[in-house]
């Protein structure tokens, strides 16, 4: 029997928490989770619902407070100042902590790009519980808000501000909204959903400077030299790994903490998982840093297996993701956006009155599918994954589409409409 090792996890988000739970399932090691954000794990994507009054903060906590004690997972509400890799020691604000194995799961923070005036009151990102509190203060008497960035966080913040009757404008760098991530038809549907809720979208517009008065924002200046008055500016230009506290350590970092396929850093017994980890050699078709909920979960489980059982490679499987823009649900499986036009093609169906759409990308020659987009229709993940993994042909997928239907009972079915379009489309017979 080995001595009881002490495993310290920095960060109590989904990655760190999953790692702790999975290690506990497999071992009797001493486990400590350090966090300076909240004493207990909560679901970060749910913070928006707290702001909208749809949930209370306590509802975002997936486990009851006594769960951790019952599972012998120690929680330490403190801030890590320094990591000493050679002595295996953490310097915290209030104490020090020795570790045998360290798992860095310290997450992200909003990305700011050194704009003039970004420190003004009323200019902020939205990531942590502290951001939620600041947002509550900053939007108390807010009438007009600007959101910088056109990604998912911007869409979520737009809904949050909409719930509080704050007039909101999105500033988007690209020519068209969501153009980078979605083909034009889907992007248009998403854009319509957002503008229908009274949100204005300004494309090809970037912020140059935040203008303030008495330390508070009053307007922004755009790259077109236009001044738009506002009393709140949300910075939604993405997130970057939260790794400033590692600058004095010997752990190698780039944008994030560099890890190999086993999620190991350059220092032995130190791992990095979740948002803060950057793959030295990312998997084909995937990014080096993926700030997604389920990849954090998979990394947490992978690292737990490595520590408790045997070295395990991080394999996230077929890419998928889902999002919700106001009432419009969106799912993606595999690769659809940015496919090579000469090799791949896609079949697109849309029901314009019901705001539903489906796109299936496939290999031109073999007809085997590589990805699916779905808007307003829920699809079964395991069925879609199987199709993509087994390179099923698009004909067969269209034929068996009902197998993937995950919509609630009594919902209108669109399979007939879809297969009809597929059968009649010239696009395919070409």
């Amino acid at each position, binding site marked *: 029997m080995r001595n009881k090792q002490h495993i310290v996890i920095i960060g109590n988000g989904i990655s760190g928490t999953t790692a702790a739970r999975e290690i506990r399932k497999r071992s009797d090691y001493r486990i400590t989770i350090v966090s300076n954000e909240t004493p207990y794990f909560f679901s970060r994507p749910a913070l928006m619902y707290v702001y909208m009054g749809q949930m209370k903060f306590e509802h975002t906590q997936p486990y009851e407070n006594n769960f951790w004690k019952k599972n012998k997972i120690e929680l330490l509400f403190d801030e890590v100042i320094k990591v000493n890799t050679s002595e295996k020691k953490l310097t915290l604000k209030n104490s020090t902590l020795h570790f045998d194995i360290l798992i860095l799961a310290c997450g992200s923070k909003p990305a700011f790009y050194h704009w003039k005036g970004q420190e003004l009151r009323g200019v902020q990102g939205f990531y942590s519980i502290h951001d939620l509190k600041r947002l509550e203060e900053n939007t108390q008497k807010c009438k007009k808000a600007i959101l910088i960035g056109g990604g998912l966080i911007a869409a979520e913040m737009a809904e949050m501000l909409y*719930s509080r009757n704050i007039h909101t404008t999105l500033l988007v760098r690209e020519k068209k909204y969501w153009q980078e991530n979605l083909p034009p038809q889907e992007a248009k549907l998403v854009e319509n959903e957002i503008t229908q809720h009274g949100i204005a979208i300004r494309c090809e517009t970037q912020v140059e400077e935040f203008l303030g008065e008495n330390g508070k924002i009053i307007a922004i200046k755009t790259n077109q030299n236009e001044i738009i008055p506002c009393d709140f500016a949300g910075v939604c230009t993405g997130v970057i790994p939260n790794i400033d506290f590692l600058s004095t350590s010997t752990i190698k970092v780039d944008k994030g903490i560099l890890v190999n396929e086993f999620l190991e850093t350059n220092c032995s017994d130190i791992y990095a998982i979740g948002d803060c980890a950057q793959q030295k050699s990312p998997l084909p078709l995937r990014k080096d840093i993926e700030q997604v909920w389920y990849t954090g979960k998979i990394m947490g489980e992978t690292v737990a297996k490595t520590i408790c059982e045997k070295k395990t490679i991080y394999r996230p499987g077929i890419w998928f993701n889902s999002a919700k823009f106001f009432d419009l649900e969106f799912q993606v499986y595999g690769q659809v956006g940015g496919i090579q036009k000469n090799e791949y093609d896609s079949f697109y169906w849309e029901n314009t009155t019901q705001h539903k759409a489906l796109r299936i990308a496939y290999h031109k020659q073999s007809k085997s599918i590589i990805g699916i987009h779905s808007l307003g229709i829920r699809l079964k993940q395991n069925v879609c994954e199987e199709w993509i993994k087994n390179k099923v042909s698009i004909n067969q997928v269209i034929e068996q589409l009902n197998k993937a239907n995950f919509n609630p009972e009594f919902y209108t079915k669109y399979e007939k409409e879809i297969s009809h379009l597929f059968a009649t489309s010239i696009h395919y017979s070409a």
Partner: protein
Amino acid sequence: MKLLRIIGLILFFSGLLLFSILPLFKRTFYLTPCALEHVLSEQEKENLLAELIPLTHIKHQQLFSFANKIIRIHQQKNALLKKQKQWDKVMWDSSQEFAYKLLRVSVKNDSFKIRWSIFFIILVACPLGGLLYILSSDKKRQSNYFTFFLPITSVKWIAYILTAWLLAFYILLYWFPAYIINWVVLVDPISKFLNGNEAGPWFLYGFLYSVVMCVMGIKMFLKYKNNAYQMIRTISVLFFQLAFAFLIPEILVRLNKPYMDLKNIWPLDYDFFFEWNIQTLIENGTLGIFMLLWGILLVVIAVPVFTYFFGKRWYCSWVCGCGGLAETLGDPFRHLSNKNIKSWKLERWIIYPTVLFSIIMTVLTLYTFFSKQNEFLGLNTYEIQKVYGFLIGSVFAGVIGTGLYPVFGNRVWCRFGCPLAAYMGIIQRFKSRFRITTNGNQCISCGNCSTYCEMGIDVRWYAQRGQSIVRASCVGCGICANVCPRGVLKLENSDEHTRYNKNPLIIQKEGVHLVKNT
């Protein structure tokens, strides 16, 4: 739109206020010996006729003093009889009910003008005002935004006022019928139109129940207009309330047939096997016998078969009256149910003993019915019936179950008390095709599903593990699937074998990896 909302609110609150103070309104009562003769039982005549005669041929202008006079006469006589141990003469009806009976026959109607203006304000303007308010509200108000900010839905002052109002209403309805004679008289025209008779407190209750469900049902239609399951389910509960619980029984009465709510099932319908009910049904020829058989078939065949195929939702959130109110009036309070593991334990410690209680009571009742013995093993059937009726039938199902909507949520009775729900729950848990399926690894643990589960099920606990939800208490309302921002949940009836994914697939990767259930 804003103006319409305000007008709606004003209409609604004036109606509600008028209704609330209506019991205090003056009314003339005039009792005649002829009416007494008609309404008193032989025993009551013998005991009380002499004392009651002085009250006849007098115009009583004060409702409460007149009612209290009757109550006092009844109580004093009963006390005397008990003191003299003349048990065969003691009257077992409550003094309130006795007073109600006399008040009912001595009501003098208000002038035509007053009567119909009150009728109009309370029964027409008030619900229409509510409807106007609901129909003119914007999209944001038909979402779950602000649920925890609005004082009415977050257990703040309005919620307490509403609770106090509901509690008072139920207490008056159950135990002080004489004092609410003005309410009862209000719905006389409707009762006469439907069944030809004057109204009683239970007609009043059934009518108000239906009106409230219709108005709040329309709110459901707006809120869930994009959710076909919710739309159809709401149509179903409204239909069963209006047709089965309200209209058909009234029509039966009009045709001189026994009053029966054909969708009310024992043991929720706890007095179905009571002597008086069986007697009435048997005496009513073919139809009565059919009703008796129908009631038994529902319990023995329909409940297990339907629950096997569809889960208990076929009843609890599609047919049941209690469920119907919970899913309409109660919808804004669904998030108030407690999700702690402790309350789940409490739930099981209360609901199963309640079923047992109802079974014991019914077995005793049937024993008494067949053997004509009032006691068995020292248990007096009528005492047990009385205790059950008071504790479970009135206090739990009515006062606590509905009165506390704004504090503990809309399914307190269904979750902790309803013996029929418990019976179906056992079937649903062990032998049913129903489950809530989760969609792979898509859950983000946000907790909307758990927050809005009216039965206090921690749906997220299962969803984040990718595990199907199979729980005795789930009434299949489908709201978890509706509030989920990632489309993770789906209510399904399917092959039994696929129900439990006992080793839930937590993380899907190449070479499927299974995790032990803990």
